[in-house]
């Protein structure tokens, strides 16, 4: 049984007089513990697909099942809860709050849990643990402008991890990073998957970054054009 499953997803939206078909029937299943990389040219619908996976958007038609539960029709507040409890986001532009320390940035999702605001002490403890997972405990009190791009993205990953989600969704996480740092970040994803069994979905347009995945899905014109399962060990050894 896949952890995430889409059935014939379509998404249409209007841009002026044009009706844009961003997705034209996407049916995919992603099992727990998979490391999926999604590639495709811009406008291929991969970002739209990611938004629906991330419960930030709802499909026009079709179903999106998470643990066999249809989440595509949930009300806004319920979707917010799913995002908070099940999903962690990593963005291309890091999206850290300025003038706010790394550890406080990491604490952010804990302000919005189902049980309300997590107590300060526990919040700090969890945030430090998350920073430890990305190797940044010594930068906890630094502000974003005192951190390098790679460090900022690692803080963002810690933030995505802090609420203990099952799925990490990353939209072009290496788009703003140099090659070395990009690989460092991808290594972190691979390690998190290995150590914690996290399901990871990464959008990228760089083939060598896509190669980190255990599975690579190609998008073109709102449709899946290829879906390749790599040999896991091969994928990892080829980049060592």
């Amino acid at each position, binding site marked *: 049984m896949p952890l995430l499953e889409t059935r014939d997803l379509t998404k249409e939206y209007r841009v002026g007089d044009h009706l844009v078909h961003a997705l034209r029937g996407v049916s995919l299943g992603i099992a727990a513990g998979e490391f999926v990389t999604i590639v495709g040219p811009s406008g291929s619908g991969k970002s739209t697909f990611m*938004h629906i996976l*991330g419960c*930030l*958007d709802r499909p026009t038609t079709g179903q999106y099942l998470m643990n066999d539960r249809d989440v595509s029709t949930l009300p*806004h*507040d319920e979707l*917010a*809860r799913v*995002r*908070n*409890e099940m999903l962690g*986001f990593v*963005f291309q*532009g890091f*999206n850290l*709050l*300025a*003038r*706010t320390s790394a550890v406080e940035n990491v*604490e*952010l*999702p804990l*302000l*919005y*849990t189902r049980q309300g*605001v997590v107590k*300060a002490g526990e919040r700090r403890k969890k945030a430090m643990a998350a920073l430890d997972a990305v190797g940044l405990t010594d930068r906890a009190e630094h502000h974003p402008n005192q951190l390098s791009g790679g460090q900022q993205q690692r803080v963002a990953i810690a*933030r995505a991890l802090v*609420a203990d989600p099952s799925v990490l969704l990353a939209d072009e996480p290496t788009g703003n990073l140099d090659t070395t740092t990009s690989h460092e970040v991808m290594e972190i994803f691979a390690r998190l998957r290995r150590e914690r069994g996290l399901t990871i979905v990464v959008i990228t347009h760089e083939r060598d970054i896509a190669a980190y995945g255990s599975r690579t899905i190609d998008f073109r014109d709102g449709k899946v054009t290829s879906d390749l399962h790599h040999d896991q060990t091969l994928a990892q050894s080829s980049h060592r």
Partner: protein
Amino acid sequence: MIKRWLSHPIVDLALKALGRNRLQTGLTMLGMMVGVATVLAMMAVGAGAQQSIEQQVRAAGLNQLTVRAGNWRPKLEDTGEAIAHGDARDTLTLPALPGLAPDARPATPVASGDILRIAFHPEDDPMEKHDHPLARQRLGDLEAGLGSAATLSFADAEAIKTLPGVQYVAGGVHENARVHLGDKRWFTRMHGTDVEMPAIKRGWMLSDGRFFTRREQDNAAQVIVIGQIVADKLFGPGNKAVGQEVMMWNQPFEVVGVVTSSTWVVQPAPGDDQFDAVYMPYTTTHRLLNLSKLNDITITAASSGQVTTLARDITALLRQRHGIGDNQADDFTVLTQATRALTTGGLPPSVARAVAGNVAELEKVTLEQLATTLERASRTMTWLLAAVAAVSLVVGGIGIMNITLLSVTERTREIGLRLAVGARSRDVMKQFLIEAVTISLAGGVAGIILGIVAAALIARTLNWATVVSPVSVLLAFGVAGAVGIFFGWYPAKRASLLDPIVALRRE
């Protein structure tokens, strides 16, 4: 508790966000502060006016009594004679010259030798041209003959002074008089009175100079305090009267003071009994007019609640002093403010007499009504002032809306991120509302401080009474919070309705 509130992460975030736009936040708070301060100061001015009206109403009457020589009030034990007198007076069809009306009262006859020197009253001269209200047109002259019975003495006044509950006592002699300054003359009311009069007349204010002194009273000095109207008529408005010499009864008097009203409730007017009048020591009047009796004695009770008791005590005391038997009528009249208002208020004398004689605690009724009316008027004024000031609060509120909108626009990506990590619309809304309310409350607290200072300054520089009540402070605080919520609502709502995807893409 405040510390816990401040350490709440969402409040903390709001404060941090405000810290990012320090100048804008400061200016917005300034706007709010000015608004709140204006409202508070205006309410303080209004409440001050209200309080001073209450004080003046109290000062004007509730605790004041007047004993007049002579009596017209029919008493129950009278065997119809007094009532007959009253009727006889009413049926007199000569209202044209009430000053000359026969003194139809069971009073001690006036010794003919007592009324001297001014044998003929100038106002009664039919050939005289009058440029002022005649005695009969004056308030209080309906019973012009009332006070002229010579039954009250200075010794009576001294005796009343010893009664418990008495605050001030002033004996008075009253005449109409012509005051000359060179070839200018003014016909007015002359009051021979006591140095304690200014203490009794709390509605008085000396616009220049001073009242006469006890030494001058003891020496029967020829000094005079003139009312504002007299000063204006003789010397012209704005010209200095104090130190000048005026003539009365062919005698020189030094003007030592000018008296006017301290309250807008009573305005000096030609023909009134207080400010179109001149005051001199009663001893001086006695000496020059060769008099020895008093027309009336004005008394203030230490507290207004004692007036009724005091009136009874004074009646008993004077009856005893005057040797009046149980079956005889008083040879004096004790008037409280209410009975005075009635008898001088233009009511037909028979009606006034009936009301004053039969309605218990009449003084309370009428004065309370007066007080209520004035209080209502001043309360209306307070709210009017506050409403005008509230406009500035609206301006402050628009400032808050502006900066909150700015904040929302600047932080669209942050809002998107918060939504992505699980914030609900209402969490976002709460965050921006807290920001708006924080600004408005901080501005409100500063405004309350500024308003209190402003009220104190107004009181000091303009001499207006101002009262900052705890209720108005609480109200100002509450209004500040409400303004924050009201004007923060729209930007906060806008923020909460943002689409996370669009918000995250915003540069």
